[in-house]
């Protein structure tokens, strides 16, 4: 349970980090919080030749909450984002989701952007980014590009990040007026990856009728699976909308796989139950906001 040997780099600026990453190409790996990378190294599941430790780049440890949303820098720890009152005011789903990420001690070290780049389909934050339609900013020397969540996650533990690029920040859009969110999941043990989970976003119009209703599913496929259920409950007042029918649509449109933790049927069953719970709660929040 010891990491394989690698060349360790501790750049002192983002520019220096980008140069090292460019040179390392697909043999380079960025180390931020390390709460996923180091277990993988310890178990010898990955063997990068170069590890580029960005923990010294304190200029990336930023969390900015504004009217447009929450911009999280690459070195902002889960705990920092979870405890921020401005973040909770702009996008309350982040604090809710972060409370489900592992344990408090892991959240002291793990980073939000690192979790997105790790792109585990069982993780909460990729689902949140996908549900809200956020984006990740990727940098290379002299240029940056913003990649929308729906194309950022490309497979299990795979993202649109190219060799040599550094994910410098992620944008989680703000929660609009008459909107609500919720996150429900089931894990075998507290703090574990969820065997199934659902995050929901419900937006109402001025007459409190459903304009948008979406669910992002955790552990339901190779990437976070977003199901738009507006077609089932759109136009209805939130109290009277068919949330059970909407959850059934989620159930219909997802095909989770079975593994040692849960059978495919059980996962799918949970998904229906959790989607209904999350949608109802999100609708209630939207209706009372």
């Amino acid at each position, binding site marked *: *349970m*010891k*990491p*394989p*040997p*690698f*060349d*360790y780099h*501790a750049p002192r600026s983002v520019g220096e980090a980008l140069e090292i990453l460019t040179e390392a190409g697909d043999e380079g790996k960025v*180390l931020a919080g*390390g*709460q996923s990378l*180091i*277990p993988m*190294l*310890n*178990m010898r599941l990955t063997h990068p030749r170069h*590890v580029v*430790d960005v*923990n010294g780049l304190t200029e990336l440890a930023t969390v900015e909450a504004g009217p447009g949303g929450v911009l999280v820098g690459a070195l902002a720890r889960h*705990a920092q984002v979870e405890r921020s009152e401005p973040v909770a005011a702009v996008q309350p789903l982040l604090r809710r989701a972060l409370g489900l990420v*592992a*344990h*408090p*001690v*892991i959240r*002291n*070290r793990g980073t939000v952007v690192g979790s997105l780049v790790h792109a585990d389909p069982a993780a909460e934050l990729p689902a949140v980014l996908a549900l809200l339609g956020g984006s990740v900013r990727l940098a290379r020397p002299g240029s940056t590009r913003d990649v929308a969540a729906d194309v950022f996650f490309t497979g299990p533990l795979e993202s649109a990040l190219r060799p040599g690029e550094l994910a410098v920040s992620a944008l989680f859009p703000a929660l609009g007026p008459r909107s609500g969110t919720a996150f429900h999941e089931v894990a075998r043990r*507290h*703090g574990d990856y969820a065997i199934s989970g659902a995050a929901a976003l419900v937006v109402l119009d001025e007459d409190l009728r459903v304009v948008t209703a979406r669910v992002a599913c955790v552990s339901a496929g190779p990437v976070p699976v977003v199901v738009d259920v507006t077609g089932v409950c759109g136009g209805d007042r939130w109290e009277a909308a068919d949330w059970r029918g909407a959850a059934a649509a989620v159930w219909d449109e997802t095909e989770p796989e079975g593994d040692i933790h849960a059978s495919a049927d059980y996962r799918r069953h949970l998904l229906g139950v959790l989607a209904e719970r999350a949608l109802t709660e999100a609708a209630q929040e939207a209706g009372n906001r």
Partner: protein
Amino acid sequence: MRDIAITLTVNGIVRRATVPGRRLLSDCLRHDLGLTGTHVGCEHGVCGCCTVLLDGQPVRSCLMFAATADGHEVTTVEGLAEPDGTLSPVQRAFAECHGLQCGFCTPGFLCTVTALLRDNPAPGEEEVVEGISGNLCRCTGYQNIVRAVHRAAEILAEER
């Protein structure tokens, strides 16, 4: 694969070591610095035995490279008691409430709980359970550990 010279402040004392990049902080503390109070259980962040305080925050020392801790302050279980050996309130509460059996998980629990009570001096039952949820006790002695956390909060309040 060059070795890296690092300087850490461990339990208030400046320590230097020269380590390969892949040296885990837990191994650096135990093998390079001889501080074997930090225990190593699972080495993939599940058990919490190796928890230490990094700049005051509890972290898994097995999920961090020693090189990343360069220039930072680390507190291990050896640094919790007073210099004259007087046990800290959290340590006394664990002894008093029989909050340890084999003792393997204890250093991690003590570090986690020390930070927990600093940030939240009077935690409720749920906050205590959530706070220690990342630490496993292989003797399954959780009832007394939870009791010890509440007792430690009492001692801290009495001594304030």
